[in-house]
């Protein structure tokens, strides 16, 4: 039990470090990758909700420690996104196909972004700071590129995992003729 907790804590720290410090410094399109969200979707799809939920809490705590909002914007956004993804998974995307993972990532990315913007607007509203969104082509292009890079990442991860494990490989039932 404790071994599992310690191992998960180290993995959460590792993921946070890579996302926060490494991905943010990458060139143009790559820095829009939300590695944390992509990994959480994979955990939800391949593992279980409980594990994804606690990873979301851990990652939210770390992201909030390095953010400058007056309340836990990242924690709330991540946890809400995982709850929504779980609802979608249990009600609509029940299989472990690539399409399900892509759809989950698509809806989760949109929901996470909306959540972040709404909460950061609330934060600036209560702390009486300026909050500007320029509803121009650049804004929508940037948002679309975030979704696109997340979908590409989940696509690559999916095929990588199906290569190294049997978890995602399709199962065909073949009727054999009895001799």
């Amino acid at each position, binding site marked *: 039990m404790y071994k599992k907790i310690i191992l998960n804590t180290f993995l959460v*720290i590792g993921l*946070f*470090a*890579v996302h*926060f*410090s*490494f*991905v*943010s*410094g*990458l*060139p*143009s399109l790559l*820095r*829009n990758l939300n590695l944390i969200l992509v990994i959480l979707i994979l955990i939800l799809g391949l593992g279980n909700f409980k594990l994804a*939920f606690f990873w979301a*809490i851990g990652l*939210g*705590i*770390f992201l*909030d*420690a*390095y*953010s*400058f909002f*007056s*309340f*836990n914007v*990242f*924690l*709330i956004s991540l*946890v809400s996104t995982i709850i929504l993804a779980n609802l979608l998974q249990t009600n609509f995307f029940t299989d472990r196909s690539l399409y399900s993972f892509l759809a989950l990532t698509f809806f989760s990315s949109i929901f996470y972004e909306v959540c*972040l*913007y709404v909460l*950061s607007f609330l934060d600036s509203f209560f702390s009486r700071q*300026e909050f*500007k*969104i*320029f509803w*121009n082509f*650049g*804004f929508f*292009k*940037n948002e679309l*590129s975030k979704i696109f890079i997340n979908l590409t990442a989940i696509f690559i991860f999916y095929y990588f995992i199906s290569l190294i494990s049997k978890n995602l490989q399709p199962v065909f039932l073949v009727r054999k003729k009895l001799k």
Partner: protein
Amino acid sequence: MRNTNRKKILIYLAVIGLLVFLYAFNLLGPLNKVIYNILNPIFSGFQSVSSNIRLTYNEQTDKIDLREHIKELENQVNQLTEENARLKILENENGILREHLGFLVKNEYNYVMSNVISRGDAVETSGMEETIIIDKGAKDGVYPGLAIVSGQGIIIGKVAEVKENISQVNLTNSNKCKLAATILNEDKTNGITEGELGLIIKMEFIPQEEEVNIGDIIVTSGLEQAIPRGLVIGKVTQAEKENNEIWQFATLEPLIKAQDLVIVSVLIP
């Protein structure tokens, strides 16, 4: 079964509620301190690796313009060598005059060197890099409003927010970074610079009658308490003047790419 689920949901909500409460009342401070102490050194390593990747990528994309750029730079080097010689003579002269007048030599700033540990903000609407996070904070004497400079002494941004061990910096291309500035022309025109859409820097509130030329250097004016005078912000690439406006404005080009820096200095007055 339904009761167990309800109990679970309640426990989950309680955990989140507790965390929000602890964060809002800053009770997670000791935990955050431990996190900063462990993670900050790791972050600077990661950041320099990804910066190298980014630099290599940028170099590849810029290679096409490289030849023209070299020619331009050679001309600039010649001009600067001549200017440097002239300035050295002036510096000597100035030193003697200061000595005579008993002035304090003011170009020795107090500074704190820091590593860039992360770039960008989750809610940057422009998609451009407008903020960085550095590994020095209130504990090191950093507070909002201080200037952040590169190794060459070019101002790249201003401290926006501070925590005990980290600070958020708004880069000069951010619309949240406003700087009191002076154009190094004959009249030493004052104005305010501000980023626009994360792409360019604009200088506003320049009186209509002032002459602004392309290539003029813009420096900090020293009107802000925490920012010393004479830090280079950029050079003018475009000046726009319209008859029906009270003010004219100029578009600036920064002299360095703040996005590529891994180590920066915080100037403490």
